[in-house]
């Protein structure tokens, strides 16, 4: 029998990007909050600039719950799914925000209105066949105040492009109107970034620096970025990366209303006979506890949110919690970030000291920022010319057809070219489809004997066409900047697991096609909320974290304001 603990007002499962933000408005509202985190506290002593530890061996974690429950993956339902080699996410207080790239974009207004905007501009027939895409139940303007508060609470650096309708060409002219500037200026550009920006202007495009949850000045009592070059999957030794373990979680703890339990491995959400959530069961080592709560908020990663719902079977929910309409796991998609385009330059890029959140963005070919009337797809991609160079990875670069990848001739090649290659990061519009979904794997279990998540998904024609289209733009940009070789990766294939995993508990007004309502609460279990990108119904062409955090803040603020009606 699990040991029953004292009841809390709210239990939050997972203290990462989303849960780590949501605890702050809840604690500030005076609610008694328990945060359950599978990982432990880590600090800057754990964040050595060490490529072997961070990138080769995935070692920053002391607890590897994610590793035990790696999803399986297959392209379509006719295949048998194989378990992926490593899980992309992190177990720790602060979660993956400890070692993420920290790109902190707002979605563009179009991303909230893909269906209605496509119909208005091009007609209904342009919605790809088989896609289950819907408009969001809220628009950009409704989320803007929450983007704004999160940008300030965690600290985001960047350059505004649309300040209350006033376009500033130094920023992204396509972004939705923002009420205020970023709280800090953008990360610096190197000579290579300036060269890329100049090449983009020559093509008639508008280059701008991207936004990052990274300090560029003293902010929140911590200093600015050191550009040390180990930011990708590395924690920050200077505490300049604004992970939630440094920002919203300590601030919530300071209210006295948040209690954090580490090494807590949640196994089940419990419900009463009326189908209301009553709390969660969790393990710390071999000890099992039941944490009663009036409201349960799931804030683990997309795969774990869906898995926990599907594993929590009960009389009111025989197919898994909040799944009486069979929507849990549906409308899943991994962000299309592949279709790489890489280049070799005839000069050193001097990219050793930089980070993936530092660079030059082009948004002309994203979303509906260009006319699709004569094209056979909707959406597009954001082109991102970033810095990301570490020694082992650099020495593993491809040779662009210039000989073997080892031996004496290769030594001469790498001596000259280790700092001369570049790969664009191109995030592309990705849509949900009828036959892409998450469910429980029938063959593979975790260490506790519970099935892991199975990903069934492949990119469809729309994603492939977007990818080929933006690859053309990327190659043109590289050529304009003087590249001597350009290579391209394939445009399609299986979705696989991703750090940008969307859907599975989609947000929407219609309970027949969505798991949570416009506020993030279950259509079926009204005191159960879901946080994270699993509620997002479209991807946009940029990183999801800030949107997941803005939505999490909004759900938490709504809970605090509507406490009596939701808590019952």
């Amino acid at each position, binding site marked *: 029998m699990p040991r029953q603990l004292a009841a809390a007002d709210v239990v939050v499962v997972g203290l990462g990007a989303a849960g780590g933000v949501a605890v702050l408005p809840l604690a500030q509202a005076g609610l008694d909050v328990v945060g359950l985190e599978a990982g432990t506290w880590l600090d800057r002593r754990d964040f*050595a*600039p060490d490529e072997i530890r961070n990138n080769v061996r995935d070692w920053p974690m002391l607890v590897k719950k994610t590793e035990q429950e790696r999803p399986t993956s297959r392209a379509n339902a006719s295949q048998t799914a194989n378990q992926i080699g490593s899980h992309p996410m992190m177990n720790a207080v602060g979660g993956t925000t400890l070692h993420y790239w920290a790109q902190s974009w707002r979605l563009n207004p179009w991303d909230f209105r893909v269906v209605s905007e496509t119909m208005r501009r091009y007609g209904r027939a342009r919605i790809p066949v088989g896609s289950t895409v819907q408009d969001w139940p809220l628009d950009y303007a409704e989320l803007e105040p929450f983007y704004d508060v999160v940008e300030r609470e965690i600290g985001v650096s960047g350059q505004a492009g649309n300040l209350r309708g006033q376009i500033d060409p130094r920023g992204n002219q396509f972004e939705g109107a923002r009420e205020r500037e970023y709280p800090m200026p953008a990360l610096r550009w*190197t000579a290579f970034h300036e060269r890329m920006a100049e090449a983009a202007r020559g093509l008639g495009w508008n280059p701008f620096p991207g936004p990052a949850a990274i300090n560029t000045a003293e902010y929140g009592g911590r200093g600015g970025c050191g550009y040390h070059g180990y930011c990708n999957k590395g924690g920050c*030794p200077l505490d300049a990366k604004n992970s939630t373990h440094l920002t919203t979680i300590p601030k919530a703890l300071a209210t006295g209303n948040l209690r954090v339990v580490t090494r807590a491995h949640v196994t089940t959400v419990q419900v009463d006979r009326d189908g209301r959530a009553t709390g969660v069961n969790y393990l710390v080592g071999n000890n099992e506890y039941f944490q009663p709560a009036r409201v349960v908020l799931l804030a683990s990663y997309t795969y774990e949110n869906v898995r926990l719902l599907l594993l929590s079977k009960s009389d009111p929910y025989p197919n898994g919690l909040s799944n009486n309409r069979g929507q849990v796991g549906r409308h899943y998609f991994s962000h299309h970030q592949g279709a790489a385009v890489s280049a070799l330059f005839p000069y050193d890029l001097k990219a050793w*000291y930089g980070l993936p959140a530092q660079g030059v963005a082009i948004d002309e070919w994203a979303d509906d920022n260009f006319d699709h009337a004569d094209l056979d797809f909707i959406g597009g991609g954001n082109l991102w010319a970033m810095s990301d160079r570490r020694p082992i990875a*650099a*020495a593993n670069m491809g040779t662009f057809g210039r000989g073997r*990848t*080892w031996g004496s001739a290769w030594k001469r090649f*790498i001596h000259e070219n280790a700092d001369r290659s570049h790969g664009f990061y191109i995030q592309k519009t990705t849509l949900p489809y009828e036959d892409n979904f998450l469910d429980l794997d029938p063959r593979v279990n975790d260490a506790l004997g519970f099935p892991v998540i199975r990903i069934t998904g492949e990119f469809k024609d729309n994603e492939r066409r977007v990818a080929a289209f933006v690859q053309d733009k990327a190659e043109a940009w590289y050529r304009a900047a003087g590249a001597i070789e350009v290579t391209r990766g394939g445009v399609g294939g299986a979705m696989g697991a991703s750090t940008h995993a969307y859907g599975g508990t989609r947000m929407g007004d219609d309970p027949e096609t969505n798991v949570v309502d416009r506020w993030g609460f279950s259509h079926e279990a009204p005191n159960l909320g879901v946080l994270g990108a699993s509620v997002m119904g479209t991807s946009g062409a940029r990183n999801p974290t800030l949107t997941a955090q803005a939505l999490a803040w909004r759900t938490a603020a709504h809970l605090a304001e509507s406490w009596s009606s939701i808590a019952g």
Partner: protein
Amino acid sequence: MNEDVRISRRDLLKVAGAAGAAALTPSALSAATSGAATSATPVAVALPVVTSAPLLNLTAAETEILAAIVDRLIPSDELGPGALEAGALRFIDRALSEAESSSADAYRAGIAALDRYSRYSRGAAFVDLSSRDQDSVLIDVQSGAATGAGTGFEGSSAAFFNLVKDHTWQGTFGDPQYGGNAGFAGWDLIRYPGVRLRVTDEEQRMLEADELEPARRSAYDFGQFQAQSAPSSNGSGDAR
């Protein structure tokens, strides 16, 4: 490379096989790396003199073959030291005791299969082949062509090639904390300017003007970081 040098090089490899890669003597090293002065980046730091026991996870015969493979992957030449001198064997041995212990069987089986393939297809043990023939064997192993039970690899030979290549690169270009990249040989080869925690605008400008001196240090030299498992200076502190 003339024949005399090639033979002295092979003697070096036999030393590595008999006593572990780290037993290379300073005079053998200087012979192997002479000509480094022609490199665009001066190799100014002397490679450390390390003595250690034979590899813990491989026999002397296996070590000799692995040393020969690693030496062809990143050879010592006029551009500077190779993977062997950088300590890639020591890195691999330490990794097989710790984080990569699940790969030990793949190493033993792969080394045996490569040598079997060498004898079958080239008529001699791998270590007795000329450098040119060793390269041609490795090309077959990399492409997956060296497969065939009894004559080579039972599974794909490419998997073994990639395993050894990945670890050789990690042992040449990774942080010296793990036993490789001795004398920062790997970082000098790719002109990596070194580990720094804060790079000012001025330092970035100096880098762009080729005026920034390499920072020759391990991340753990800063003293503020906890190593996952810190080997002592004589290498006996590994988790074994």
